[in-house]
């Protein structure tokens, strides 16, 4: 059960109630134990467990998603890179990052956690969440940006005004 902590950590950031997260982990291990014959020896056990957990999570979350905030990805996102890039403060406290993370919509948050914390590859994330590779890339990009924005907001609420970068052209000008 060496991946127990990793799984719980991810679950606890996706299901705000710690008890729900713990239940999810128990169900994940039970499912893994029952379907262990399907696990291909030599493949990534950690990725397999995450896949099971997200499969379970999908059922748990279905009702929650109906009421959750859904953010549509702006079609102009890619062209808007230089518009107003929020700058991450130099000193970041753990609680500030976690508060900012909680404010990011769950469909982006899960990808940020899988990519940046658990360090799964795009391909592994796509297989785990059963979404196309392109969606992984766009959601990760959006999720990271939302996190930067939320963190900048947190910093601003403390009276810190992180320098906001303007477009490269404007800066150079």
């Amino acid at each position, binding site marked *: 059960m060496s991946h127990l902590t990793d799984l719980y950590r991810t679950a606890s950031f996706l299901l705000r109630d710690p008890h729900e997260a713990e239940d999810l982990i128990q169900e994940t291990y039970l499912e893994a134990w029952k379907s262990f014959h399907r696990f291909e020896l030599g493949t990534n056990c950690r990725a397999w467990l995450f896949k099971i957990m997200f499969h379970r999570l999908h059922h748990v979350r279905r009702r929650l998603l109906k009421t959750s905030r859904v953010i549509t990805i702006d079609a102009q996102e*890619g062209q808007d*890179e230089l518009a107003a890039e929020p700058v991450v403060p130099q000193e970041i406290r753990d609680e500030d990052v976690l508060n900012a993370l909680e404010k990011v919509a769950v469909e982006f948050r899960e990808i940020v956690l899988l990519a940046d914390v658990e360090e799964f590859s795009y391909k592994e994330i796509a297989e785990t969440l059963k979404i196309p590779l392109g969606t992984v890339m766009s959601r990760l990009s959006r999720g990271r940006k939302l*996190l930067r924005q939320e963190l900048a907001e947190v910093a601003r609420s403390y009276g810190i005004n992180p320098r906001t970068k303007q477009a*490269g*052209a404007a800066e150079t000008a």
Partner: protein
Amino acid sequence: MNNLSFDSKRCGRIRQQLDSYLSNELLVETASEVVDHLESCESCSRDLESRMRLRDALQRAVANRPSPDSLRAHVLRKLRESQPRSFARVTVKRWCLGFASVAVVLASLFAAQWFNLRRGEQLIGSILKLGITDHLICAIKDHNYPELANPPDQIREKLGPRYAPLLQVVQRLPGFEVLEGHVCSIPGSDRKFVHFITRGQGTVLSVILTERNGARLPAGKFLASAESAGLSIYADHLSGMEIAGFESAQYFAFVVSDLSQHEIVQLARGLAPALNEKLHTIALLLTPNANDWLAKSVSLQILRETNQCNEKRRCEVQERQQNG
């Protein structure tokens, strides 16, 4: 203005790649292009540094969040509870019985193996000891050899037709003269020893052979580094004497003397291939199909080729070691 517009476009394109660059998902060529740009663009470089800082902070913050101590216990309890009670009881009983049976079988096998090993070690120890005793009594104490070497024909006669062919092999021992050869035993043991007494390098050296009767040498006594034509050489030190030799299909063969272990091992290595071949011939002559000369000659040819092949391989290894 045109330059500024070009830079802006380039920065925009690079920043679209920064997320994949951060995740190490870019192709080498694209990553190289990003690196080149970052080296010359302070703005994009600062952006990347900011993203990396956030990622590190996120990893640290998530890792620092504790998970409940009871989590592992709860998961294990859940797994236990998931088994039907009756099934669990039966399974536990069966498992217990299974484990007990396996444990008994394993213990018996282990004990048998241990006793065999002990018995084997004792047997080997006694054979080696008897071999050395034979050398000490027959060659050293009783001085059962003449000052001038016995004529080869006389030695062959003493050895009998079965072991006479071995003489020409022992005669090849470099720097040693074969003084005597006979079949002997020592008081208190019915084990027969084919015993050659040789003299050289200022000492007396015995070449002794005795039938294995299914016994094997304990693995620990083999010298990992010493091998001759595919035969493992073993060595030991008993009663102030050095002993080195090998085991053929039917016989133990060893060299005993008060020379150094290194010298004894070298002599044993030199003697082993030819002696093994002769012993193989002797074994073939004693088989029920002794009249099948064709089978014997083919078998001998194979053995000869194997020895040559092993010798060639050993030479190649030595050459490689010398060159490299």
